[in-house]
Every structure is written in C-alpha cells, then in structure tokens.
C-alpha cells in the first residue's frame, strides 16, 4: 500500500505539505486551549479575577477561529488531493488494462478488473482521504498532547507509559485477528454473488430440472456462511470500542488519584492537573481516532494489493521498440512453423502450422472442437503471440509492427458479436469515424441488416444497449459484420461469425460478401459445412495440426477428417 501511495501522491506533494502544515497549526491551536483553560482556573477562577477570565476567554475564542479556518482549508485540499489520487489510480489501471493482451485479461477476469478499478480504488481512496484528515492530525495531537502533558507535570506523565502500550496491544491484537476474517468475509461475498449469478443465468435449466429447491439450499449455505463470518468480525469489533473506552476512562481515574497525591504534596498546582487531564484525553481521543481509521486499513491493504497486481502486470504483447513500416498491401498472411501454447500449459494448442493465406482469396478453417481453429485466428490480430515460428503479413512479421498499424488492416468479426452502447450508427462507425451515412447503409445492405434497421423507428440512430442486449443474436451478428465492412480493411477475419444466423440469411450474406468484398482477403472459421464449401481453400485442423488443405472437392477425395465433418451434416448426395 505504501508504494501505491508514494507513487500516486507524489504529484500532490505541495498540496500535501500545505495540508500537513495546516493540520499542525490546527493541532497546536487545539493543544493550546486546555493550557489556557488551566490558566483560567489557576489565575482567574482560583483568584476570583473576572477580568482575567474574560480576556483569556477572548483569546480562546480567537484560537478557535484559527482552528476552524485552518481545518476548513485543510479539508478542501485534503479532499481534492484524496480524490485526485483516486482519479489518477483509476486512470493508471484503465490504461494498463487497455494495454493488456487477451492472456492478461483472462488471467484476471473482466469482472475482477472492473471491481479493482472501482471498489478497490474506492477503499484505498477513502483511507487516503481519512488519512489526510485524521491520520495526520492524530499523531500530532498525540505527540503534542504528550509534550504538553510533560510540561504540566513530568512524573504524572509516567502514566502514559502504561496506558499507551496497553492500547497498542488491544488494537494490535484485534487487528491481527480481524485481517484473516475480513479476507474470509470477502471470499464469502464472492460466493453469494456467484450462486445468485448462476441462479439467474441458469433460471430456465434450473426450473426445467426442477432444482429450484436445490438452488435455494445452495444459496442458503452460502448465505449462512457469509452471515456467520460477518458476525464473527462484527462481534470481534464489538469488543474494541468498549475496551478502549474502559482503558481511557480508567486512565482518567488513575490520573486524578496520582495527581491528587502530587497536588496535595504541593508539587503541582491544581490547574495543571485539570489541564493534564484534558491533554491525556486529547491523546487518547487521537488514539481512538486512529483506531477508527485502522478499521479501514486492513481492507485497503487488501485492495491496494489487488490494484498493484494489475499495475505491475506487464502486457505480454506490446509494441516493438522500433516498429517496422507497415507494408502497403495487399493482405497476404503467412504462418511459418507456428507453435502456440497457453502460458504454463503442457501441450501446444497449435503445432507445425505452415500456411500461406493468399491475398484476395477466401480461406476457410474447419476442425472439431479443440482443434485450435479459434486460436489460430486469434494469432492474426496478435491477441496472442506465437510461441514458436512466425506469422507475417505481406512479408513483415506481425511482431515488428505497431499494433495499431496491424489492426488497421484487419476487420475482425468475433464469435460473440459484442456491440457497444450508443446508436447503430455509432457502432458502425467504430472502425472508421468519418464514414458517411450512405456508406453505413451500404455495409448494412451487404450484411443483410438493412431490412431490420430500416424497420426500427429511429433507423441508424436507434439506440443500442450495452453488449447489444436489445437486439437478437442474429441482428447483433449482422451488425458486427457491417461494422467490419465499414472499416474496409484488407483482411476480414470471421471467427465463427455465422453461427447465430439461420441458413437462409447465412447464404444470402455469403453471396453478398462474395460479390462486395471480392478483393479482400477473407479468413473464415465455421462450424457449418454449408458456410465454407464455396471457399477458395479449406484448411482442415485436427488436434492442433493441419491435416488437409484444398477445395471442397479435393478434400472430399483426399481428407478423411474432412469427409467425416461433411457427412455429419449433409447426406451423401448433398455433399457430392
């Protein structure tokens, strides 16, 4: 946590210095008040000097005014600094995540990254904010209180030597025991979330399998578990405040007793005793304040650990130091002896892949589940990097290009069509912000999406909710295709992008694509034989290697795996 604070508070050194300065002023002024109070008693009350009481009272008021002004200015700069800290950390996390490749993203999980950028930052930010108010002033008050108490009477201050360690032990022990409990609570919240999320996403299956009661029980277990853990922490903390209050209160009793002895023997004036009592209260108040703060610290420590984990992750895929100039075209791809394995995996997903994808032609990739089709395609935009061999675009290795240059040439249509909140037009313009409305309609027409978009009340300006949830799967998929078309890249990559379409739309779409983007390089991964039969070349993958390559007819003659795939979907006369 310290490292995180040091890095992200550095730009605000001046503001911090100002806040600390103001807090010191505030603390000193606050400490001076009991002194004046003692003074009133010794020199005013005890002597019955009303004028003295009044003049000292006026001085006290003036000091109070100093305190309030100092603390309001301090709060202003403290809030600003604390919130700016949060803003900067969030920004750093977001930028880091934007630089991540798929591997890092999957390692953390999207949901976790979101939580880290919001809730975790929030936890740390609150501690910074509180710190800028109380955590700074508490030690000043405590130290100042000790100094002032010593000024009142040195031997009596010995009591502090006993009290302060007792308090430290109490707080320390409770904190030490609470930390693992907090972590347990956090895990159990996760579990409740998980069970609920599953119950919502699987609601049809649960009801179809008559498992509602079972799910309720599962939830109940998680719920009980969370309740028990939270209760444990809360009961532990229920002990803290009464215990500290007891120490605090008993200290005042002890001070009065020992103080009385010293007053009686004439070693200490009574006004000093009363002031001393107030200083000790101030010290203990400061300690209590710090303790309240410390309740937040364990969580913040956990949170900053999670933040640092993200910030310290180097994206495994980055831009080269000296990027090559992007080749002008025409969009040919070549895989040379490519091997790919996921980090830490024993077996390679792809092995010995050597493949030229000709510019301007349609290349289809088929294979069974786990054959590595999607992985192969993910290598092209460098969502993953090859672990052996090389992949080049028009003769330049993709790893030598800036990723922006690489991506500019690829139009990706992912398996899961993801749209962004906005309008249909804003989604279509994702790849090219300056596309005209005519160009958008043209893309929609090719993607077989012009019909339904026209039917919408607002046409191109119809709203799209996040992820495209207000559209059907088929509509999303066609918009995703149109989005890539608007971009007009040299290479189109269809990652099983036709699966949500019915056969009719699928075939119309392919026919339109064949006419309209004839000049582009097309790479298609598909499950349906019908979708790929017409490709210029079909590459058959099995177990991560290429087992066949050629046209439909060539493969029907030569490739057993291909024949199996085809026969699984079509009868023999259809396949012929």
């Amino acid at each position, binding site marked *: 946590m310290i490292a995180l604070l040091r890095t992200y508070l550095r730009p605000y050194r001046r503001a911090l210095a100002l806040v600390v300065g103001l807090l010191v002023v505030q603390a000193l002024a606050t400490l001076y008040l009991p002194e004046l109070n003692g003074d009133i008693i010794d020199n005013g009350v005890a002597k019955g000097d009303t004028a003295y009481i009044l003049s000292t009272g006026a001085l006290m008021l003036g000091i109070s005014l100093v305190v309030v002004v100092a603390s309001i200015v301090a709060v202003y700069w403290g809030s600003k600094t604390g*919130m700016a800290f949060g803003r900067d950390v969030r920004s750093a996390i977001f930028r880091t995540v934007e630089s991540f490749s798929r591997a890092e993203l999957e390692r953390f999980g999207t949901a976790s*990254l979101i939580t880290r950028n919001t*809730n975790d930052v929030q936890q740390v930010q609150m501690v910074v904010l509180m710190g800028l108010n109380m955590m700074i002033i508490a030690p000043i008050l405590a130290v100042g209180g000790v100094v002032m108490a010593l000024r009142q009477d040195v031997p009596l201050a010995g009591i502090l030597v006993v009290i302060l360690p007792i308090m430290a032990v109490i707080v320390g022990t409770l904190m030490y025991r609470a930390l693992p409990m907090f972590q347990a609570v956090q895990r159990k919240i996760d579990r409740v*979330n998980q069970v609920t999320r599953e119950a919502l996403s*699987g609601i049809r299956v649960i009801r179809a399998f*008559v498992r509602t009661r079972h799910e309720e029980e599962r939830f109940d277990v998680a719920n009980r578990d969370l309740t028990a853990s939270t209760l444990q922490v809360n009961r532990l903390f229920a002990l803290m405040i009464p215990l500290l209050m007891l120490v605090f209160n008993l200290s005042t009793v002890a001070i*009065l007793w020992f103080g009385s002895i010293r007053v009686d023997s004439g070693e200490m004036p009574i006004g000093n005793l009363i002031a001393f009592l107030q200083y000790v209260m101030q010290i203990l108040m400061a300690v209590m304040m710090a303790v309240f703060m410390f309740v937040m610290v364990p969580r913040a420590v956990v949170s900053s650990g999670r933040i640092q984990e993200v910030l310290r992750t180097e994206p495994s895929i980055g831009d080269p130091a000296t990027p090559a100039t992007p080749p002008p075209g025409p969009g040919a791809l070549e895989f040379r002896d490519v091997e790919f394995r996921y980090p830490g995996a024993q077996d390679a997903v792809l092995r010995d892949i050597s493949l030229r994808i000709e510019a301007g032609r349609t290349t289809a990739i088929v294979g069974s589940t786990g054959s590595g089709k999607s992985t192969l395609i993910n290598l092209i935009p460098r969502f993953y990097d090859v672990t052996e061999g090389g992949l080049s675009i028009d003769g330049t290795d993709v790893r030598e290009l800036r990723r922006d240059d690489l991506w500019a040439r690829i139009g990706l249509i992912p398996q899961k069509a993801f749209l962004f909140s906005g309008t249909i037009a804003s989604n279509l313009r994702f790849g090219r912000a300056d596309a005209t409305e005519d160009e958008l309609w043209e893309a929609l027409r090719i993607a077989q999406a012009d019909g339904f978009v026209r039917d919408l009340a607002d046409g191109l300006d119809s709203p799209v909710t996040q992820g495209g949830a207000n559209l059907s799967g088929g509509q999303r998929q066609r918009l995703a295709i149109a989005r890539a078309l608007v971009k007009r890249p040299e290479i189109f990559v269809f990652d099983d992008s036709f699966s949500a379409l019915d056969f009719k739309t699928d075939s*119309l779409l392919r026919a339109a694509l064949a006419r309209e983007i004839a000049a582009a390089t097309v790479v298609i991964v598909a499950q349906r034989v019908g979708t790929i039969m017409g490709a210029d070349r079909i590459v058959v993958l099995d177990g991560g290697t290429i087992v066949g390559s050629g046209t439909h007819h060539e493969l029907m003659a030569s490739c057993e795996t291909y024949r199996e*795939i085809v026969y699984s979907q079509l009868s023999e006369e259809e396949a012929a």
Partner: protein
Amino acid sequence: MSGPTGGAAGGARRPPPRGFGGGGPFGGPGLPPEKPKDFRGTFGRLARTLRPELGLILIVVVFAIVSVACSAVGPKLLGGATDILFEGVVSQQLPPGVTQQQAVDDLRAAGQTEQADMLASMTLTPGAGVDFTALRNVLLLVATVYLLSSAFSWAQAYIMAGVSQRTVYRMRRDVDDKLSRMPLRYFDSHSRGDTLSRVTNDIDNIANSLQQTMTQLITAVCTIVAVLAMMLWISPLLAVISLLTVPLSIVVTIFVAKRSQIQFAAQWAQTGALNGHVEEMHTGHSIVKAFGRQHEAIERFDLENERLFQASYRAQFLSGTIQPAMGFIANVNYVLICVIGGIQVANGQMSLGDVQAFVQYSRQFAMPITQTASIANVIQSAVASAERVFELLDEAEETPDVAYAGIRRAVAGRVELQDVSFRYLPDVPLIEDLDLVVEPGETVAIVGPTGAGKTTLVNLLMRFYEIDEGAIRIDGIDSRQMSRDELRSTFGMVLQDTWLFHGTIRENIAYGRDDATEEEIVAAAQAAHVDHFVRTLPDGYDTVLDDDATSVSQGEKQLLTIARAFLADRRILILDEATSSVDTRTEVLIQRAMARLMVGRTSFVIAHRLSTIRDAHTILVMDHGRIIEQGTHEALLARRGFYFDLYDSQFAEPLLEAS
C-alpha cells in the same frame, strides 16, 4: 463467478459508504440510488423487518441506556473528586485551627468578596489537606461505573451484531426465495445485472447501515438525553447556554448537508457512468483493440473520471466542513462555559469540579449531535437500497401451483395443444388457436428464420410463460392441473445456452438426478461422447467447472449438458438448437446419441439440420413469432409455401454453390 468483489458488505464499523456504493462484480448498477421515492413508507417497512428481533432490540436499548447512564455519571463523579482535591488544596492554605467561617469572614474583611463567597460554598477543615479516603472512595466508584458502562456497551454491540446480521440473512433468503417464485417474464425483461445488484449490493448496503446506525443511533439518543440531564442537574444556566448551540449545529448541518447531498448524488451518478464505461470497454476489449479504439476509450474514460473527481471532491469537501464547523461551535461553547463557569466559581455559585464536569459533558454533548447528522445520511442511502429490494419483493409471482405431487417418471409422453393462444404483449397477437397432437415417441421439428420466435413454444410447454387461452395436456392432463415442478419433471431439456454451475463435472451431469450412481453418470457421459474428454482432464469427473473456464470449450460444455439430459431420462425432450455450437465432427457422434435418446421419447426440436427436419412427424414453421405452417415435410413441400422457400434457400443453395 469471477474475482473477488470487494463488495460493500462485511466491514464492521465503517464510515458511511460514500461514492462507490457497493461494487460487486457488476459495477454500474450496484450503486445505492441517491434518493428514495417514498422515504417514510420504506423506512417503516425496513423497521418492520426487524420485528422478529424486537425482544433483543429492547434488551439492546436497555443495555444502551445503562451503559450511557453509567458513562454519563462518570464525569460528575470525577468532578466530585476534583472538588475534594480542590477543597484539600484550599484548606492547606488556611492556617490550621481556624474554622471555615472565620476564614470566610477574614477574606470578607480583606475585601476579597469573591474568594470569600467561593470558600463559603465549600465544606472543609482548614489545614487538613486532601481527604484521601473520600477521594479513594469516589474514584473506586467511578472506576466501577466505567467498568459497567463498558461491559454493557460491549454486550449491546455483541447482541446488535447478531440482530443486524440475522435480519440481513433473512432479507437475502426472502429475496432468493422470491426469485424462484417469479415468472420467467420478469427475468426476460429485466437486466440480470440489476436484479443481481439488488440481491447483493443493495442488501450489503442495508447490512452495513443497520450494523452502523442501530447501535450508534440508540447510543446517540441515550447520550443526548443523559448528558442533557446531567448538565441541567449541574447548572441550568450553563445547560441553557450549551443548548443554544444545538439549533446552531442543526442549522449548519442542514445547510451543508443539503449542498453536499447534491454533490453526493452527482458523485454516485458519475460513478455509475464510469463503471458502465469500464465494464463495457473491458467486456469488449478485443473489439476495442481490433478496431483501434483504445485511444477513444481512454479519452472517454478520462472525461468520466474527471467528472467523478469534480463531483466527489466537492462532496467530500462540503461534507468535510461539517466537522470543523461543529468543532468551532463546540469550542465557542467550551469557552463560554469556561468563562461563565469560572466567574460562577469565583462567586461561589458553582464548584470547580462541576465546571470541569460540565466541560466534559459539553464535549460529550456535541459528539452525538454530529453523529446523528451523519447517521441521517447513512439511513437515506439504506432506505434507497431497501426500496429497491422491496420493489423486487413486491413483483408479481407466478400463479400458485396445485399441490406438488412429486416427480413424475411414468408418463407416456402424449402432448396435446388445443386452441392455444398466447401473446407476450397484450396487443400483439402471436400464437392464435394452435392445435397440435403429438403422440408418444413422435418428433416435432420447429423451423423458421432467425428471430422467428421458435423458443416461444418451449416457454409455453414448460410453463415458463402461461398461455392465455386453450389448454396444453400431457397424457390427457391439463398442464395447469399439475404443479409446475411436476410438469417440468416430465421434460428433458438441452438449451443452446449451455448452463453449468460452479461445481464438479460429476455434480453437473447429475444435476437432474440426485440419486444417480457413479455408473449412471459415466454411462450418460459415454452416451454424450464426453466421457473420453472428461478422462483426459487432470481431475477427471472431479474437475471443477468455472463460469469462464477456458479449460472446457463451448462444444464440450454442450456435450456435458447433453449428458445431463441423458441422465435425467425424461419422457419428453426439448432440444433447443442444441447442437448448433457443437463442432461438426463431434456432431456426428452426438447425432447418433441424440437419435438414440429420442427413440421412444416425444421430442420437440428447434431444428437446423435437414435430416432432423425430414424425419420429424410434424414440422412447425414459424415466422415473426407465429406458427404459419404445420405438417409433414412432404405435405409442406407440396404446398410450395413459406416452408418450400425456406427449404429451398436453406438447404438447396449451398449445395448448388458447392457443386
């Protein structure tokens, strides 16, 4: 379920949640809304949820009163100790042997009227020094009182932790139970994230608030009352002066809170906007990159982030000024007490110990008032969350079931739809007067273009939605005459959307049957051709499936759901595009297994494969949500209608292209 959530629950005493309301993994929707719509109603209802704990709450209140009373008496007693000490000190200054009255008279004679008055109000023996026996007795009493105060305060907090956690436990349980009684219609029309957020974030918010506010509120109120009583007892004059600061404090608090509330609302709204953006950009990470949009994503983030910063620092600053302002008011009060108290002591109208006690009380008095102000904030937020939870609890439920008669196994599987009408929206007719008889073992293929509403029929068969008119009969029994569980237990289902829960593969396959033996599970896996795959995993059938498990592909998940249907062994099957995301080669195997599974079972198949369609006894052709044609393959082809076109385009064209 991914990553730790850092949700808002769990923390013991935490300051009121400011800004990010609860988080949870869903970001955006998880914010406690700013302003409740019906504050009083919801607050009352929230209070009523505490009813089962009423007995304990009363005990808590009693304990709180005892604890506060004890700690309230403390300063007064300590003040007594100070007096004993002060008198001792004064007595030392008087020559021994003179009486107190003589000493007073001497002072008067010397013109020191004020000191004389002060002395007159004391009880002392000149020259005796401090009365340590009396002092010890007082201090022992004070120590005991403080010990009691702490003990009761601990007991009170301990019980309260149980009260609030149990209440929240019940609330979570009620909501979860409610979810299982709500119709699918609700889930299909509401954002999952939002519903989830109500179960988790909002309830967490309530949990924290309950824990925080209940004890604080009780203690604060008791403290105000007790301290006020003590102050009045010691000095009505000073008490009135102190009381003057109360309205001042309230005015200042309201003044600031009104303004900070606006900024807090802006902060929450902005947090939502930022969360939404982050969530969206992370979810669509690959697309953002592939389309070169990360610069725009960052720009937009910076914009939202800056707005959040502006709103939040203003909110923090404004709410942060309450504390110093209260401090100032308290200090003014303190000075006034010192001055006026000092004068009164000098005049002998008050003892020094009382002034000292009064100073302590006035300090104690200021704290609960500030506290109450902040509690009000927390309550606002909790009530807003409670409103969202109650809203969910008030949603319409499914019509009550007839009594559940247990799972039906021995059904023949005859399905009959008679004059069935159904519409999702009252004014958009979908299915009108549908008649269909499916004999045991027959197959119905449902075909139609994308978005034709092929799943509607599934919704009706399973009673996920209720039909408006007509009847659906299973083996001659109206499906509304069965409980939903009973009805559903006659169906086996494989949906396109492969749903597996966080648990082992074994548990997932056995989902439909608790009593399945190991052999049966393995047999089902073999039938679905997933046994081999499972055995290649390091943990085999004990492999734990995760929501975003990358170790199991979509196709393999699909196989597992098929195995699950195999094991459930129901007489009627619903296959909803079940094989569309299984890859082609596995599909051969599945097809065979499916064929075997369908033997002797009545099947409804949302079909994409020609062979399935041709072999079906009845084909239902759907378009725009309606069944427009119905019949056998040959009969429909002969009609040369919609089906003919569909068949032609779907299955003929690719063949032509390829050849």
